């Protein structure tokens, strides 16, 4: 499944597409919510690896507006629970991820994102 934690580390890699190629925009997505074990320690260690604005924008595309625009300094429980939900419980099952720069479409099918490119697109 494409959870938003995974989406946050995927970028367009079409030959020559090196700027404004992240985050991939969600289109026509089918979402499933699945409960996951709440692990605040994991969230705290993973947070520095997250691109915050990309996550907030993508969460909005997935119809979740629980995250603040700026990453808070105080990681209270309410924030961590929202973050947990956005990163780990929202599963994109079907849809498309579109590069904001070159508009390449990366399909998501059966919960699996397809990042493969045709030979001529490979950098």
């Amino acid at each position, binding site marked *: 499944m494409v959870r938003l934690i995974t989406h946050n580390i995927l970028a367009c890699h079409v030959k020559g597409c090196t700027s404004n190629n992240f985050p991939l925009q969600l289109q026509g997505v089918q979402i499933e919510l699945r409960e996951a074990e709440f692990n605040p320690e994991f969230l705290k260690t993973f947070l520095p690896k997250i691109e915050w604005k990309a996550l907030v924008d993508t969460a909005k595309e997935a119809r979740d507006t629980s995250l603040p625009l700026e990453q808070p300094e105080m990681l209270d429980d309410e924030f961590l629970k929202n973050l947990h939900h956005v990163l780990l419980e929202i599963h994109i099952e079907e849809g498309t991820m579109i590069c904001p720069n070159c508009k390449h479409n990366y399909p998501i099918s059966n*919960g699996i994102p*397809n990042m493969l490119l045709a030979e001529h697109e490979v950098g």
Partner: protein
Amino acid sequence: MTTIPTPDLSHLSAQDYEHVYEPAEDTFLLLDALEADLDDLKAMNATLFLEVGSGSGCVSAFAAHILGSSTLYLSTDINARACNCTRRTGAQNKVTLDSIQTSFINGFHPRLKRSVDIICFNPPYVPTISVEASEAQGLRGIEGSWAGGSGGMQVTNVFLDMVHELLSPNGRFYLVAVKENNIPEIQERMKTLYQLDSKVVLSRRAGREYLSIVRFEFATST
């Protein structure tokens, strides 16, 4: 040999194994190597685990089972059916594996550089003629799980040039190899080019294959 149970693969059928590599001695040797390093791997507090060419998902599910939910488990495979099996194997074993269909790590954001703590790669290591390996990768099917081209190293070599960029400073990379791959040469090359020290941590004969697990880490880590 393994005392920790191997992942439950009862949900996978003969039909799946027509298209996806069925776990075999090479897979189990890798599980044994991970298990032997269990204390060290736990002590790393790994944030990111990556398996390239996850196939059935057996190795990733095993790692997720032994290391727990404080790690993100990413797995890639060029074979869509393999990605699907990986995902299902995670679910069957009550762990979450984030499966991505891609070649190696193509499409990963560059900021993942130097941040993957544990990497596993059981490559197509069987020596074949070169064109057979290229075609097998192009077909994105089961042939690509074993056809390794010249010296069985055609696919492995591509990834060996990426590993140093991905691995975190204290990270570990586990590679499955056979004798024909010329393991001493691989070790020498990784040391010279990328300052990656390595050790053959486990070897076993399985039929015609003499299998080894090679573990790499940066020379600076202690």
